[in-house]
């Protein structure tokens, strides 16, 4: 099944997704796949009720998403999939999500992370997951909003050590 966009973004559903990508891609549905949010009744309903400017919103756990993905639940929709981290995306891919490419839209700073771009910081675990995704022949592009430069993540991380977060230079 082809999704209009599969995006890693640690702000989950926010303005860049609903307004910028939403107006560019006109998705029918935004699917947030996040075990923490899906497992917390209050946060789940908060996100599920997001006004996504015309798109429906689904908040699902990894297991729920993979089950519906297998059933081709959204085959007649223009669905946009959102995950919080490279590790979460890898989990979906390992669980059967077949994609050719994905977008890295926002991995913001936290302690021990190294800056690749102003909106793209990684630690060792992120890098490991990113490399595992790339090794499956999936292309990753970094781009926060549409109509800006798409940056190839494979080139961006070429030459970085395994332990990038803790090198502390």
């Amino acid at each position, binding site marked *: 099944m082809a999704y209009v966009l599969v995006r890693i973004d640690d702000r989950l559903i926010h*303005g*860049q997704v609903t*307004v*910028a990508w939403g*107006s560019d891609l006109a998705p029918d549905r935004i699917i947030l796949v996040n075990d923490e949010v899906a497992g917390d009744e209050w946060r789940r309903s908060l996100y599920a009720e997001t006004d996504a400017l015309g798109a429906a919103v689904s908040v699902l756990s990894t297991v729920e998403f993979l089950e519906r993905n297998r059933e081709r639940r959204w085959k007649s929709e223009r669905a946009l999939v959102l995950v919080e981290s490279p590790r979460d995306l890898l989990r979906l891919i390992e669980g059967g999500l077949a994609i050719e490419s994905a977008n890295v839209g926002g991995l913001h700073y936290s302690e021990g992370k190294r800056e690749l771009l102003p909106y793209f910081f990684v630690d060792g675990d992120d890098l490991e997951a990113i490399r595992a995704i790339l090794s499956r022949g999936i292309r990753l592009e970094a781009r*926060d*909003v*549409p*109509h*800006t430069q798409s940056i190839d993540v494979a080139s961006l991380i070429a030459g970085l050590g395994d332990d990038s977060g803790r090198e502390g230079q």
Partner: protein
Amino acid sequence: MSEARKKIACVVVAHGNVAQCLMDAVQGILGTQSNWVAISNAGLGLNDLNAAIAEAIAELQKTCDVIVMSDMPGGSCHHACQEVIGQNSEVRAVSGLNLMMLLEFFVKRDRQPVDDLLGLVMERGRDAIRIL
């Protein structure tokens, strides 16, 4: 009908740093935008504020239709906008500026004529005001 539609620009006029800050937020969400000017009333008397708005409009009107957005009905920014558009019937103006209005403007401005766009901007701005 045959004439290509003009681009639509906006002049954002507000107290303090509000206009520039709102445009920073818009560009954080949508990426860099062209054909806009942010104006603050800080330190400007009414005449200078009028002049700053008129100058921005004149520059943008060389290539675009122009909508002026001000923050507060009854404030100096809004009065100045009213004075300027009183002498320039081509320009549209709205007040009550909020972030959703600006986002709607920049997302939709290439897709419809200026009066339709103005309607969408008003509607989105009103709809954004809610009790949580």
